């Protein structure tokens, strides 16, 4: 039984692998694009959703067909959010129900395992019945290939005969024999040194009374499950195991719910994010993925959703008309929205390539085989490397993974040495990447670097600058424009230190 809600022909398996952990390069991307905020919005407080969102966002799809498969499922989810959340909740309830069914005092005792497996199977049986009734009631309203196949499978596989088989197994179970155990006071006065004893003069199974010995008696109520469990554990110390087959059956059903939960988690996260952005008054759109060789990038009202989720009021949207452009170089004033634009392009690309909507009014872009970020960093806390060394080391890691069509986002790269040297290093690297078919978005204040690309400008380069109003104020919009050599140091110094006399 496979849900197949993330891929047409396979489950999410490898993405969920513990071994499928972030590499240094994807960690950098996460940090630089502040993906954490996006996951947080998708999670809405659910750590599992956060983890899943993280894994899926970093495992980009690379074909427009795969992206469309998810986009259609997501469209169903947006049209029927309550049903999708209900199915997700059933999976969660099944999994947490399994976890909550504790092993008793003696967790490894066979009797305890047997008892537990029975409880789990009983609970699972109820959840499977719920899933069936959701399918029966709602499946007609779902349009996407993914959901239609999913509901069809539920109806076929979980028929009454199968569920009855499960119930039959549960009825077979039962146990109970009296035992006599001696003990002394161990750590913290807990019983210790248990030894099983024979009841004098009687078969130990048959006799309760121990004659006239002084003693203290009590009874555990039938409804006291914890007490029953504790007693079962005490009684079953020596019984050989018979629980494995039953435990395995419940493991198989658990695996199904686990995968279902993981695959639906992506869509539930998407609903959460969509609701958050909508509540902030922001538009979202279904992006148009274009096969990689086209070099497309056109956007209207593109904004940084992470920023938007944090601000009150709407984020500033930018348009981009960069079809056919291989280099987009962004220069100009600090605080002009350059980094935000860079992040919004990176986020849009990543969101599109995992099947999500995009934070824009419209977005059309080529599917990229790899999305990479190289942002300026704080001093390396591990101290081994100087700053430029650290930057180049990261760039080296990225370079080894770049392929033609890859998208590289650079934010103030090579600025950790002085302007002249930083520009020279940047020039060599960017030139080599462009000629190798890599797409580069580069935010820089290195005038020397930006100016040299502008002077040798080709049709495949685009230069953007923050818009400044006539009064000098900033709009956080970017417009085409040539790199300017001015800087703002003396202005800021005057503004901040002006009142003090040296």
């Amino acid at each position, binding site marked *: 039984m496979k849900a197949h809600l993330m891929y047409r022909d396979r489950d999410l398996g490898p993405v969920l692998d513990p071994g499928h952990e972030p590499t240094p390069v994807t960690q950098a991307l996460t940090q630089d694009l502040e993906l954490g905020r996006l996951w947080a919005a998708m999670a809405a407080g659910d750590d599992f959703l956060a983890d899943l969102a993280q894994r899926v966002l970093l495992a980009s799809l690379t074909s427009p067909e795969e992206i469309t498969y998810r986009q259609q499922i997501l469209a169903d989810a947006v049209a029927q959010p309550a049903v999708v959340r209900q199915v997700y909740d059933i999976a969660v309830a099944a999994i947490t129900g399994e976890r909550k069914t504790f092993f008793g005092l003696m967790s490894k005792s066979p009797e305890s395992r047997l008892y537990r497996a029975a409880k789990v199977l009983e609970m699972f049986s109820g959840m499977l019945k719920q899933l069936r009734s959701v399918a029966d009631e709602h499946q007609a309203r779902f349009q996407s290939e993914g959901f239609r196949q999913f509901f069809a499978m539920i109806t076929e596989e979980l028929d009454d005969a199968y569920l009855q088989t499960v119930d039959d197994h549960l009825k077979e179970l039962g146990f109970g024999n009296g035992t006599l155990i001696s003990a002394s006071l161990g750590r913290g006065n807990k019983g210790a040194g248990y030894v099983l004893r024979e009841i004098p003069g009687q078969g130990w199974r048959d006799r*309760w009374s121990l004659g006239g010995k002084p003693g203290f008696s009590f009874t555990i109520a039938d409804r006291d499950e914890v007490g029953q469990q504790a007693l079962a554990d005490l009684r079953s110390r020596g019984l050989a195991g018979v629980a494995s087959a039953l435990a395995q059956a419940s493991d198989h059903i658990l695996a199904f719910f686990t995968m279902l939960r993981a695959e639906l988690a992506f869509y539930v996260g998407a609903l959460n994010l969509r609701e958050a952005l909508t509540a902030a008054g922001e538009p979202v759109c279904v992006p148009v993925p274009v096969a990689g060789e086209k070099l497309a990038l056109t956007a209207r009202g593109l904004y940084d959703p992470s920023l938007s989720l944090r601000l009150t009021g709407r984020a500033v949207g930018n348009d981009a008309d960069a079809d056919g452009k291989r280099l987009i170089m962004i220069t100009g004033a600090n605080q002009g929205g350059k980094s935000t634009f860079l992040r919004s392009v990176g986020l849009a690309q990543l969101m599109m390539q995992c099947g999500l909507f995009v934070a824009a009014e419209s977005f059309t872009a080529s599917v990229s085989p790899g999305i990479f970020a190289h942002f300026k960093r704080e001093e390396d806390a591990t101290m081994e490397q100087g700053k430029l060394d650290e930057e180049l080391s990261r760039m080296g890691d990225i370079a080894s993974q770049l392929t033609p069509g890859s998208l590289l986002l650079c934010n103030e790269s090579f600025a950790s040495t002085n302007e002249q040297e930083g520009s020279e290093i940047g020039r060599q690297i960017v030139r080599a990447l462009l000629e190798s078919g890599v797409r580069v978005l580069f935010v820089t204040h290195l005038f020397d670097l930006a100016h040299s690309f502008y002077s040798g400008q080709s049709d495949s380069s685009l230069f953007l600058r923050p818009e400044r109003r006539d009064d000098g104020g900033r709009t956080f919009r970017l417009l085409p424009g040539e790199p300017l050599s001015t800087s703002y140091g003396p202005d800021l110094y005057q503004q901040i230190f002006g009142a003090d006399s040296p």
Partner: protein
Amino acid sequence: MSFRSILFEQAPDLPEPARSAAPQVLADLNLDQVCSALTLGRDQYDLAPYFLTPLHDEAAIYYRHQVLRDLRDSDVRAAVAAFARGLTTMRQGLAQVSRLGHRYQQQRWFLDAANTYGQAVLTLAQQLRDVQLNSAGLVSLREYLETYLQSAEYQQLTASVADLLDRLREVRYCVHVKANRVRVTRYEDEKDYGAEVERTFAKFAQGTATDDRTTFRTLAEMDHVEAKILDGVATLFPELFRDLDDFRRRYASYADDLVMTFDREVQFYLAYLDYIRPLESAGCEFCYPEVSTVSKQTRVDDGFDIALASKLQGEGKTVVANSLQLDGPERVIVVTGPNQGGKTTFARMFGQLHYLASLGLPVPGRAARLFVPDRIFTHFEKEENLDNLRSNLEDELVRMHDILATATSRSVIVMNESFASTTLEDASFLGAEILRRVTGQDLLGLYVTFVDRLAALNGACVSMVAEIVPDNPADRTFRIVRKPADGLAYAAAIADRYGLSYERLRELLSR
């Protein structure tokens, strides 16, 4: 002198929050790593407040130096460490007391904790009798412990503990379980039935059956069945359990306050000594610095970055030591030179030396004379932060402005690559303006910069340069030497080393 505190000569008051160090300063100097390493495994002592509380007078610093010298003796160290282990066990026991729900379980954990405490104090006092102590702090502690051992309070406590433990060891009982019924009786030599039971149930084994029965949970808690069984045992031995109740009531607060304070405070020393011991074994030298709250004449022979040394030591490498000196009117070291030449490390070392000295600890270096500042400030370049919507440069300037507005002529400032994220002209202009203000305020400090001309700004500035090997510019010695700035940077060589020159990159991407 009567014993008060092993850390504070005068008032053993806890840190004044206002004087404690700013988290960002510790992070910039990588002292947060040192603090984490010191406190690692020592959570129970809450040592961070001590690490965050620099001292501000010479006598308080020298009081600590004395205690540390005594603690360097292996017998003294062993005695204090054994005592600490005892009290840790005691605290774990008391934590169980407050966690556990059952009265007779609580009483027993409490009794065991009191027993552990009594033994630990006795052993410490006995072991301190046989060692040579020179510090005012430990000598007065030793006197205090002897008085305490003779007190009626201590004597009665230990006698009661011994009696109860003997009687508890004698208890034996039986539990009979059938269906929902449980009966607890005294043990009367009933026969071992284990072997019989195992034979009876062996036939249920499914081929390769595993024997699960050896691994039972050993939680401290009892479920309510166990709890009722223990209640039953208590009815079988009523006198013993009544006395156990009485003990808990009578000795509710058995531990002595000063003993407990000592236990916590001495960990600050032990933590630091544990931290530097492997470094010393690897050849790094530490010294007790000469300190002054007045003179800014500064000298450090073969100092090093303690956090880096610790990290390198873990990798089997040693750190490069560097010396520095500030005489007469000299106040600010301006460090220039190639990237990855050890400039930032040198800057951290400068800040660390001043900070560790004012904690009264041995500092990383062969010999040192250091000024005791009222505060240390750092201005390190920051990562772009979405939470602060102002631009980097504006943020840097605002931070710098705040520092200079707060700093006094007794402050130390460490500036690392300030204004490096702007244009060369801006970095040069702003660097000179700020440096003029720093020297104008007579701050003691260090400034790492790319801008050569700042190194010779005025008479308060001393130029130091990260040395390179002329034949191999990509190689680094990590030595910082006193000489004029020479304007060399070797970025291109490093870029080539990472395969990022145009030719090598083209080759890589055309494969």
